[in-house]
């Protein structure tokens, strides 16, 4: 990989104002993220982190998932973070369908050596770290409200300001197998767009954002509401849509995992594309366009 393709993360700070047009700019700085996008992004970071961790706490109260309207101890789970006694002590068993995995130390059984206990997700992943369903629920519903209100502000802004059409929707030239395959190849080689191409989101990035904004996160809210017996009386069609409260709980769990996967890839990409420049652009809005071979 050539040095030129790597974004200049450690260079001097960006100029306060864009340089005059007459002088050929050494560094091109663009205003990339609007204030609402930046604010809602960071509120989302906080809300989603705590929702995932308090969600893991709530899950630990009954670490088994079912498909259908009902599901409890006597029914067959589709996913379970269980435990069993062996001659060598407790063993964590993660079950997905008919497959079983030994996940001692992380899933099913975890804790410091000698004090391992039966527990779905480990304490370092839950809030609070000890088993406390009541407190976990307080956190979950507080940050669920924050997440929903924040999300509505973002959606409204995205629609009205043109952010979705301008920044998130794939451009005409980005649609088509040739461009998409090219982008996949770039991602495999950890190559990031430079010059004019770096001023917009790449096609895989756009598709990932669209999947999160319009599919996974709405599914999260929909399945979350389906688990509420009160809301079910208001919108019984949710039970039909998701195939029951226990199915909704399973979908909620799968979507939570997809969100974690998205965040991991997202953060890795931020570092690969130049952490300082990327994070700065999400704080101040200003983004230094990485120079490429052609520019």
């Amino acid at each position, binding site marked *: *990989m050539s040095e030129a393709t790597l974004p200049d993360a450690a260079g001097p700070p960006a100029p306060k104002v864009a340089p005059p047009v007459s002088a050929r700019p050494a560094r091109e700085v663009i205003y990339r993220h609007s204030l609402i996008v930046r604010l809602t992004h960071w509120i989302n970071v906080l809300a989603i982190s*705590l929702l995932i961790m308090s969600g893991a706490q709530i899950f630990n*109260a009954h670490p088994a998932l079912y498909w259908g309207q009902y599901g*409890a101890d006597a029914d067959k789970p589709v996913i379970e973070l269980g435990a069993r006694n062996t001659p060598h002590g407790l063993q964590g068993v993660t079950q997905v369908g008919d497959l079983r995995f030994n996940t001692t130390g992380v899933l099913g059984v975890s804790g410091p050596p000698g004090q391992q206990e039966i527990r779905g997700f480990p304490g370092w992943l839950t809030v609070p770290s000890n088993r406390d*369903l009541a407190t976990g629920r307080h956190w979950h519903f507080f940050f669920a409200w924050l997440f929903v209100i924040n999300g509505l502000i973002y959606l409204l802004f995205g629609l009205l300001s043109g952010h979705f059409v301008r920044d998130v929707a794939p451009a005409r030239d980005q649609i088509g197998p040739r461009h998409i395959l090219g982008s996949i190849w770039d991602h495999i080689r950890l190559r990031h767009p430079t010059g004019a191409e770096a001023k917009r989101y790449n096609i895989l990035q756009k598709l990932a954002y669209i999947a999160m904004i319009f599919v996974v996160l709405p599914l999260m809210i929909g399945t979350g509401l389906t688990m509420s017996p009160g*809301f079910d*009386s208001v919108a019984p069609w949710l039970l039909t849509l998701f195939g029951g409260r226990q199915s909704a709980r399973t979908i909620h769990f799968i979507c939570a995992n997809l969100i974690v996967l998205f965040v991991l890839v997202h953060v890795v990409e931020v570092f690969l594309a*130049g952490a300082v420049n990327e994070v700065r652009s999400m704080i101040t809005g200003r983004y230094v366009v990485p120079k490429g071979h052609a520019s």
Partner: protein
Amino acid sequence: MSRLLLSRRGLIGTASASFGLLLAGCDRIAHAPSFDRFLESAQGLSYRSQRLLESGQPLAREFTRADLSPVFKLNGSINPGGAAYAALMANHFADYRLQVTGLVSQPLSLSLAQLRALAARTQITRHDCVEGWSAIGQWSGAKLGPLLQMAGLKRNARFIVFHCADELAAGSPYYESIDLFDAFHPQTILAYDLNGAPLAIGHGAPLRLRVERQLGYKQAKFVMSVEAVDRLDNIQGGKGGFWEDRGYEWYAGI
């Protein structure tokens, strides 16, 4: 390539450092009572928005016999124990009397036979435990609304409290409370039958509350008396229920 490696190392370092800070911070404030109360304030938002949406008193989804859980999970107290309850049990609850007390003009004392003669409802509904599991069962029981009307609910009554025979913690009899909005919901019943047979001891014999749009801990078992009150803060821990006194939300619609 070296810079790439550096940023990878930086990524892992920064990520784990911030995660550790986040965890330590969360734990510290999670155990601060004032912060917990602040977070719990979201309960009011959930309660008020659901009450607004439920203003037409919609019914909880009712299922068919084909949807019944093969095994209805037993949870909480399986047997209240104690001499008084054991005596009732020995006599198949022939001596059981449900007391209706508090802010009513006509306190009542009703036998099971009398309860079975009241306006009744049978419904196949889903029971949702706060832990996450669900079970579907068919409940039959006396409708709470007409029962309260029979007792002549006073104007200042705001909540209905259910006092139970079991003690999940020593010295703290189980109790629960609901508001009048739920008390007069058509599916709110004092159930005496599950799946066509008298309640088993483990399911709360001889009488348990079904308030279908809330979670399992609201469905008080072994109900001995029903009390109409204007406030909850002077009963036991003051939060309106056994689990509420131990940190769970009073409104368990979510």
